């Protein structure tokens, strides 16, 4: 890719993000001059750099956004929330365009054709700004009051205030309202009291329509898509229809703040890994040298060199890992946009509070964490947080609070997502788990509340009475847990009914890479850390000498005790190769020990994680790792086995 373009892509994304961050603050604090300046500068710079690439559509849309911000900055036309929305929409569109450029080298035609509408939205908003200041108040109290007009629980409430001049644009508001499907209530009232007959202008609209409908949000939004600034639609959270529009946030797989192509860092890391494997080969050389007549001196020197190499490769490895460290804000920064969007779609006003996002972790962990985190946030918004009416009834503030905290703990970090929603009822989980055949009634009765809640992570578990597209269908927390396990972390859930739910992810900050040799015994595969293997040899059965209860064989004139992995692990000893045994020679402390295995397969460079749960404290096993195909490989602890 053209270097200038590559640079632009990185910068454009940063500028888009910076501007959106500013705009979200401005939405809450319209008088924050610092943020306004900063948003203006970001949009201005972005517009300038699109000029380098002949992207007229982007430039024109950004110019429009810059104009609005500029007017707000000079104090002639303050920003209202609908303008903020329109500018954010333009910026998100620019972001998508940048994705296209990176992937395809150009922006798709369909995407480009959206520019005019985006600009029109912003223009309509600016015209609106001075005449309809009341739109700025985004209260949903009216929607709740309206919902009380009917006995049923309608899916959404709508308030449509046609612009006074709308008849001149050819609008026929009542015709739009007539298209609302599944209408259950409609009231029409004057916006301002009707004037005296002679002061009445028939060409100015003075109407407000308030409606309740059971139709899916997306269908109703589609009807009013050309007048989004004149209509407020509040989903009442009763029954999201099948066409519920799911906001999609594409997990980012590109690191945006690393100015070095991350593939280069990965290549460097691979090279370090190979260097470490090669360095391990010195162990064998030491043995060879030691076996030579008068080789002891040579063996010592090689051993000393190996030590130096150990230290150097170790620090090289650490340094490479360090370059991969990125702040958690990279995973967190798309969340405010998503929460903002979801809270409106679900009709659940929510404040997202983020703490500790400056903590750094390996890029791969931060990237891999994004999707599970997204899932947890959606889950919390969809299931955990109640709708405002329910919150009122429970005596909670209408706006819910979603807190995301990150803390560093040694070489791990805790990432905790807490909501102040309805919490989880362990009894409901027990019942659901029995219904779904995950546990029997007896088993369920024996679970304490924490274990019962943990059942949520069982495969195929979904407690929501109505599945919605927000948090997926059935593939729920089990997917989250396995994603977290894959990066060597754990996820736990704690909940207090009526008070809220907390999800705690414990993740490594960086990877501990281990070279493993995979061996098989009794049909199972195990990993043996390469650093404890000095070589692998074949030994003829008749070359094995029994010594009391034990056995031994001779390797380069030295007697090496022989153990069998099957019997160490408590299996029957295999008789796969009657004539010849495959033996791993392990160097444990200064001793050499042979371990007979059924076979040796590949070598792996993998990430191991410490044992948890049932396996904690099992002797001879140091950890587990998940293979590419999802199987779990137990990693043997050579020293532990032999003792």
């Amino acid at each position: 890719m053209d270097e200038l373009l590559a640079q632009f892509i990185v910068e454009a994304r940063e500028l888009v993000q910076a501007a959106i961050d500013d705009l979200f603050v401005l939405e809450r604090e319209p008088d924050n001059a610092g943020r306004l300046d900063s948003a203006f500068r970001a949009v201005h710079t972005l517009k300038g750099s699109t000029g380098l690439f002949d992207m007229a559509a982007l430039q024109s849309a950004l110019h429009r956004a810059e104009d609005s911000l500029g007017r707000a900055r000079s104090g002639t036309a303050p920003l209202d929330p609908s303008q903020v929305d329109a500018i954010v929409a333009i910026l998100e569109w620019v972001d998508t365009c940048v994705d296209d450029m990176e992937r395809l080298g150009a922006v798709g035609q369909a995407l480009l054709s959206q520019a005019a509408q985006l600009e029109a939205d912003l223009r309509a908003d600016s015209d609106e700004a001075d005449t309809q200041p009341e739109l700025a108040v985004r209260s949903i109290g009216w929607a709740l009051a309206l919902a009380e007009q009917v006995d049923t629980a309608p899916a959404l409430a709508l308030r449509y205030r046609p612009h006074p001049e709308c008849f001149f644009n050819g609008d026929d508001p009542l015709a739009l309202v007539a298209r609302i499907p599944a209408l259950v209530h409609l009231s029409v009232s004057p916006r301002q009291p009707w004037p005296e007959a002679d002061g009445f202008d028939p060409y100015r609209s003075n109407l407000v329509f308030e409606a309740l409908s059971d139709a899916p949000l997306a269908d109703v939004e589609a009807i009013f898509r050309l007048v989004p600034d004149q209509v407020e639609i509040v989903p009442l959270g009763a029954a999201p229809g099948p066409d519920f529009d799911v906001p999609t946030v594409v997990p980012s797989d590109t690191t945006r703040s690393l100015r070095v192509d991350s593939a280069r860092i990965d290549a460097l890391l691979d090279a370090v890994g190979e260097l470490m494997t090669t360095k391990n080969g010195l162990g064998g050389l030491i043995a060879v040298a030691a076996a030579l007549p008068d080789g002891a001196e040579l063996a010592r020197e090689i051993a000393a060199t190996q030590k130096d190499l150990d230290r150097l490769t170790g620090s090289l490895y650490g340094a490479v890992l360090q370059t991969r460290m990125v702040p958690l804000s990279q995973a967190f920064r798309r969340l405010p946009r998503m929460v903002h969007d979801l809270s409106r779609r679900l009709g659940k006003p929510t404040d997202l509070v983020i703490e500790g996002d400056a903590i750094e972790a390996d890029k791969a962990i931060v990237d891999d964490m994004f999707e599970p985190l997204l899932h947890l946030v959606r889950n919390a918004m969809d299931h955990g947080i109640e709708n405002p009416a329910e919150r009122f009834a429970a005596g909670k503030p209408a706006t819910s609070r979603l807190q995301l905290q990150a803390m560093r703990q040694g070489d791990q970090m805790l990432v905790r997502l807490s909501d102040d929603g309805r919490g989880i009822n362990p009894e409901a989980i027990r019942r659901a788990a029995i219904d779904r055949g995950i546990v029997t009634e007896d088993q369920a009765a024996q679970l304490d509340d924490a274990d019962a809640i943990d059942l949520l992570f069982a495969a195929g578990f979904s407690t929501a009475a109505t599945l919605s597209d927000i948090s997926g269908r059935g593939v729920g927390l089990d997917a989250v847990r396995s994603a977290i396990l894959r990066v060597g972390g754990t996820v736990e859930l704690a909940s207090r009914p009526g008070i809220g739910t907390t999800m705690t992810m414990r993740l490594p900050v960086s990877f501990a890479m281990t070279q493993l040799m995979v061996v098989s015994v009794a049909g199972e595969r195990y990993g043996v850390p390469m650093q404890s293997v000095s070589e692998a040899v074949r030994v003829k059965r008749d070359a094995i000498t029994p010594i009391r209860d034990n056995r031994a064989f001779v390797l380069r004139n030295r007697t090496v005790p022989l153990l069998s992995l099957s019997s160490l692990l408590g299996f029957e000893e295999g008789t796969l190769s009657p004539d010849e045994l495959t033996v791993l020679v392990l160097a444990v402390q200064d001793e050499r020990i042979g371990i007979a295995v059924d076979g040796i397969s590949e070598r792996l460079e993998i990430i191991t994680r410490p044992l948890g749960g049932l396996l904690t404290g099992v002797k001879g096993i140091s950890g587990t790792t998940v293979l590419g195909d999802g199987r779990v490989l137990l990693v043997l602890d050579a020293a532990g086995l032999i003792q």
Partner: protein
Amino acid sequence: MSVLLKDGSIVLTGDCGVEEAETLIGLIQGNPGALVDVGEAGAVHTALWQVLMALAPKVTGEPRDPFIRRWIAPALGMAADGTAT
């Protein structure tokens, strides 16, 4: 199609566009007490319904459009059977 004075009543016939709002106002103001008959009306622009709401003349006739009959007629003080109340 048009807004006309017929036998002392103001009659909306067929589709009535936004530009006929002014005619409607003129007829209502020029004929105080005249009934407005919407029984023959087709698609009527919002502006005309707004005139009827603002000036509140007596409205009669059963609107053909079920949406209008169900949701708008009550706001104009009409009974569901189309008789003026």
